[in-house]
């Protein structure tokens, strides 16, 4: 044994995840044969002797001309153009290493930042433990993950809090056309940035951050069922301060949707008013 699977195609990443895994999809397990119906083996599958099998646990998803399996668990598998949140784990002379929850640490080169960094001066800009929003730029066959901080909505994070969810849950956190994240930000007034890697930055009043965390926990622990948006909505309504005070909280404007990146990156920690842009800056619609 050992040779047979190597006849299958080489899989790189498990791209193209559907934004909305639903209960209608079929759960498959590694080694289970997939009815391919003439489709080619895509990510999460392999072929032996004309038959296609699942290679990961996940949901079966025909995407002609491919059949693929969308993962329901596991670490973050980077795809080009994913916007992710990372934490600095190591600082070198010309680059930083970021933990983005992927199989490998991702190097952020000093030229991939909006700063004019001199060689050896990297630590003045980012230290171990600091967090950033970056975009996956390229993946090479050695598993190296190149990321950049150049682009809108990218930069260093200040203040707020970070919540981790399974990367497989990110589509549910975002919701159809951003509906879930819209529900969360509208009810809490918190600012929320969802990384494709399941790391979520939340800012606002402590109370607001707490309610977002709880909502994210609900989404994380919920089974593959319908009606999740309604349950999150009702939780957020039931914990709304405005309800206690008998005041209807107005929905917030997406005032800063087009704000330049630097605003996002270098904005000071917000005051307790919880004011701030509440749009989902990178919400997975670029799947």
């Amino acid at each position, binding site marked *: *044994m*050992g040779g047979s699977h190597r006849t299958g195609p080489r*899989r790189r990443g498990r791209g193209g995840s559907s934004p909305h895994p639903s209960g209608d999809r079929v759960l498959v*397990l590694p080694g289970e044969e997939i009815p391919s119906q003439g489709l080619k083996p895509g990510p999460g599958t392999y072929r032996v002797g004309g038959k296609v*099998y699942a*290679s990961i646990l996940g949901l079966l998803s025909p995407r002609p001309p491919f059949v693929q399996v969308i993962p329901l*668990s596991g670490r973050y598998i980077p795809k080009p153009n994913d916007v992710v949140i990372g934490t600095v784990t190591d600082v070198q002379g010309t680059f930083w290493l970021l933990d983005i929850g992927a*199989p490998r640490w991702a190097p952020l080169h000093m030229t991939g930042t909006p700063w004019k960094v001199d060689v050896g001066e990297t630590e003045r800009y980012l230290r171990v433990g600091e967090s950033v929003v970056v975009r996956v730029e390229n993946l090479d066959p050695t598993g190296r993950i190149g990321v950049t901080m150049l682009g809108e909505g990218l930069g260093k994070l200040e203040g707020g809090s970070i919540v981790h969810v399974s990367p497989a849950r990110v589509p549910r956190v975002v919701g159809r056309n951003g509906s879930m994240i819209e529900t969360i930000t509208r009810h809490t007034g918190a600012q929320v940035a969802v990384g494709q890697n399941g790391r979520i930055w939340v800012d606002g009043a402590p109370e607001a951050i707490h309610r977002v965390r709880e909502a994210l926990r609900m989404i994380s622990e*919920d089974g593959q069922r319908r009606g999740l948006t309604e349950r999150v909505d009702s939780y957020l309504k039931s914990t709304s301060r405005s309800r206690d005070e008998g005041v209807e909280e107005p929905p917030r404007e997406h005032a800063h949707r087009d704000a330049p990146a630097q605003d996002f990156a270098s904005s000071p920690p917000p005051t307790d008013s919880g004011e701030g842009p509440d749009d989902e800056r990178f919400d997975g619609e670029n799947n």
Partner: protein
Amino acid sequence: MGSVGAKDVPVLLSPEGLRVDGRRVNELRPIKITAGALKHADGSAFVEWGQNKVMAAVYGPREVHPRHLQQNTKAVIQCKYNMAAFSVDERKRPGLDRRSQEISKVIAEAFESVVFAEEFPRTSIDIYIEVLQANAGTRCAGLVAASVALADAGIPMADLLPAVAVGKAGGAIILDLKKEEDNFGEADLPMALVPQSGRLVLLQMEGHMTRDELATALDLGVQGCRGIYEVMKQALRDRYSVAPAAEAGA
């Protein structure tokens, strides 16, 4: 194994063909698998099999430590099988021993045969198996737990890896030895099967049997593995499928 003159040798096979615990020769002990039993691992599983209790956790693919083990074209699969001091009748001294190291090696190699390690070059997939309560067949229980944990961790592989020990006791070829059969029987033959291909990726034997007996044992083992396979798949379905009460139980 089979030590002559040992006192209190139990009757391993009754005239009616029943074993020490009342099983027939081709019967498995009760087995229960919980996928996702731990909160902090990338994947995990708890296996209760007969009187064995084994926990497995998977971390990775992640950066390789120590770095010199890194491989340029694939993930390195590292396995550590360990027995808790209190898992056996006579306290086992904590720490590395030769038996655990050998078992760790053959289990790691079994998984290298099915995991698509080339998808994650320069990383490490770390498998930890902790035997908490032992009653023969712990390497198979550990392998089964680790396989479910790997699937739970989203690791790509050709198949799940069911495993079971067959052996010979009381002159008969039997499936899934328990402690008395392991201690006083004539042979012990643990194996792991790739159901998709029908091939074995772990095979050891201790004791002695004839060629004909071995042929019977292999058939019986494959049959046993297929039974275990169904339990493994159900454990993963229970954790991931659409369920009305989907709250992850501890």
